[in-house]
């Protein structure tokens, strides 16, 4: 079952080619890892999928629908959600509000109803608060739920960001280096959350990560990028043994480690 199909996608910035004729398929329910050297265009690809960049050529098809020209918020409504390489939380808002914002597309109340806090708005707030509390429990961040996220430690912020993306109840979850800057123990936690999400919610995920250990262990399939082109694709073990990948990305040591 294809959830997302990318056809011949290209992206240019002035003279820089960030993506060049990239085609890719993501199947429902899988965890697809994208790896590649810095500046290979991994984040750019996610940006194209979530609508922050407009590709110069090519198509993006999500659940059978061409979304290439849709603005980001429309894609969110269709069920695409993401986290960012450098945490992009709403710094002055509490953890709760941040995750509530993830529910935005599922809520309806407008200005009037919200300002009067009457009827729909009030009912809705309570109902969605319940969902949000579940996510908070799941990510084990109960103790900080009322704190402004700007004050939290890095690792916790990463979790909140995951929570916010999750609150949208996405079909497709894009994770851009969720484990960067974490130590081994925290990586383990994050890996556990990702696997649980896949298992319990059945969410499809695209994961960018530089830690090969993690990639090899938790992804179903791996795609490798270099200079904006896809240079390899396959199950983790296959990719790891691919000489092109070793040369461009892993280096000798990593390649042979297994």
């Amino acid at each position: 079952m294809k959830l997302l199909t990318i056809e011949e996608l290209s992206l240019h910035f002035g003279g820089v080619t960030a993506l060049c004729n990239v085609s890719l398929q993501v199947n429902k329910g899988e965890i697809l890892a994208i790896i590649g050297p810095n500046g290979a265009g991994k984040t750019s690809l996610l940006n194209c999928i979530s609508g922050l960049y407009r590709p110069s050529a090519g198509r993006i098809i999500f659940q059978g629908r061409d979304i290439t020209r849709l603005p980001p918020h429309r894609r969110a409504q269709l069920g695409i959600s993401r986290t960012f390489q450098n945490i992009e939380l709403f710094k002055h808002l509490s953890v709760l509000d941040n995750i509530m914002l993830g529910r935005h597309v599922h809520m309806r109340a407008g200005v009037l109803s919200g300002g009067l806090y009457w009827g729909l708005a009030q009912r809705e707030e309570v109902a969605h608060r319940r969902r949000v509390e579940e996510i908070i429990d799941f990510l084990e961040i109960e103790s900080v739920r009322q704190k402004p996220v700007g004050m939290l430690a890095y690792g916790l912020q990463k979790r909140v960001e995951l929570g916010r993306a999750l609150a949208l109840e996405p079909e497709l979850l894009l994770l851009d280096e969720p484990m960067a800057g974490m130590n081994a123990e925290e990586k383990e936690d994050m890996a556990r959350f990702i696997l649980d999400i896949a298992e319990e919610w059945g969410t499809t995920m695209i994961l960018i990560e530089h830690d090969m250990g993690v990639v090899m262990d938790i992804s179903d399939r791996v795609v490798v990028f270099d200079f904006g082109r896809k240079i390899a694709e396959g199950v983790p073990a296959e990719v790891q043994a691919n000489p092109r990948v070793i040369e461009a990305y892993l280096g000798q040591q990593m390649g042979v480690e297994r």
Partner: protein
Amino acid sequence: MLALNNVEVVYDRVILVLKGLSLSVPEGKIVALLGSNGAGKTTTLKAISGLLQAENGRVTDGTIEFCGADITNRDAEEIARRGIFQVMEGRRVFEHLTVEENLIAGSYTRKDRRHLKKDLALVYHYFPRLADLKHRVAGYLSGGEQQMLAIGRALMARPKLMLLDEPSLGLAPLLVAEIFKIIKEINQQEGTTILVVEQNANIALSIADYGYIMENGKIVLEGDVAKLKDNEDVREFYLGLTDVGKKSYRNVKHYKRRKRWLG
């Protein structure tokens, strides 16, 4: 060369982050500082380089000595002039300047401008990639390129002590290896003393001479690299190794999840 004695750091007058931390960096060596998120590693570096003030933080107790002089709570620029250069977390290159202008800005504290050309050549020698990108605007470089630039910029200042804050953050494995190789080279060929903060304990310990491990604002373990590598906890929590070798993230999951359900 550098010594921190019982340093306490407080943010916003109330948040106590460093709780009596002591460490020392001998001249010409590479010292690694490891620790979990939020342990206060960055804070330690900022305390040394004087950048705390910009964030409303202060060293409230203890002393920081550099080459025999007390530099506790001094201005950042003064400390930099004395030869300490911090490469900040998250690279922080000057986005709108070109690569070369970034490097020139790095040489600001140098008194003699005559060596500018030579210094530039040296940086380009270590990072040939930067030479190709000379005239590109730094804000659009990829993460790894920016990291190279940040280190290159530090080199331009010819510091006695270089503080590196998570140089591997977000870099591809190949680059991580390369950058650490260059760090080692710089240390050996230029004689620059280096204090490096890293999450990637494997690689950090592979080039360092000495290591500190901190938790919660204090040093909990220190020693020669070899000794650290043997330590049980370090192996488990920092190197991700178990008795049977490398553990799998999939297995971790089941183990932890069971624990969560039981608990």
